[in-house]
């Protein structure tokens, strides 16, 4: 019994360390396998569409007029991922903040006046918090662009970069190139102006 407890706690310690990128990548591929084997196409952004349908958008626009029964699994997945974030932070968290590169840290300090680390290194809370009007506006704009772009492109990172590319789909590859065009433009041109 004591051996078992020791074994389990050493496993928890192992999981609690920061993961090497190859371990993380393999774990995401395992999720893709599970979802595919369970007969569903791994994609998160369609959940936004489901929320629209839940709010009654199907009565006004045929695009949202779908049967939610067939989308139950996606809502379950999304709710589960919220719990997963909670569990990791409170029970499996790494002892140190996310170890980003030195050059990124000095860029944040010099160009954005941003200290690092902030919290566990997951979100710049000095910008994105409910008491900062600028952060609220940026959060709204960012969320809107992601929600709009994902539906226009019929998929987000999970649907195109992971699932679509694994199925060797050319439209997915071009969409991912688009993700980078927009991302680079925001990071190198727009953010230095607004941060």
């Amino acid at each position, binding site marked *: 019994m004591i051996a078992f407890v020791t074994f389990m706690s050493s496993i928890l310690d192992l999981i609690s360390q920061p993961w090497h990128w190859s371990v993380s990548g393999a774990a995401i591929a395992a999720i893709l396998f599970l979802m595919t084997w369970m*007969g569903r196409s791994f994609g998160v952004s369609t959940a936004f569409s489901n929320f629209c349908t839940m709010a009654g958008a199907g009565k006004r626009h045929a695009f949202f007029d779908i049967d939610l029964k067939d989308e139950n699994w996606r809502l379950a997945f999304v709710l589960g991922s919220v719990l997963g974030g909670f569990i990791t932070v409170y029970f499996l968290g790494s002892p140190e903040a996310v170890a980003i590169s030195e050059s990124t840290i000095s860029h944040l300090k010099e160009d954005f006046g941003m200290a690092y680390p902030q919290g566990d290194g997951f979100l710049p809370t000095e910008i994105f918090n409910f008491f900062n009007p600028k952060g609220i506006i940026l959060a709204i704009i960012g969320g809107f662009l992601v929600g709009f772009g994902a539906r226009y492109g019929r998929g987000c990172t999970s649907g195109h970069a992971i699932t679509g590319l694994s199925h060797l789909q050319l439209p997915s590859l071009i969409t991912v190139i688009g993700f980078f065009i927009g991302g680079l433009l925001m990071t190198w041109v727009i953010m230095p102006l607004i941060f």
Partner: protein
Amino acid sequence: MKQFISFFTVGTVFGIIMTKSEAVSWFRIHEMFRFESFHMYGIIGTAVVLGAIIIALMKRFKVKTLRDTFVGYMPMQLHIPRHLLAGSIFGLGWALIGACPGPMFVLLGQGFGIMALVILSGTLGTYTYGVVKDKLPH
């Protein structure tokens, strides 16, 4: 109900993986777009290479899914300007808030309440697309 519990469980594991991989970190995404670390490229690259092998094997050996279907992908019609434009709009938002849809939910679970606002706004963005879609190039 059984389906709900299975997918809820897979979602929970996904939330743990995304947090431990640090792919839900705004700072990791910023670092990725500045090409200052291999971390995110390593994650996505490993996932895609292994994913492609897994999918190819499942197709080759005609693995039946739990819903009694074969593994496949509904192909999308190739329309390069649309993919680039839609992808760019998404990318602008992704780099700004450092989270794509999956991580938004994971970060909400981590206790970042502002993600509820981001998710609400994302839903509004999707609704707006549904309203104006006939006027956009497809």
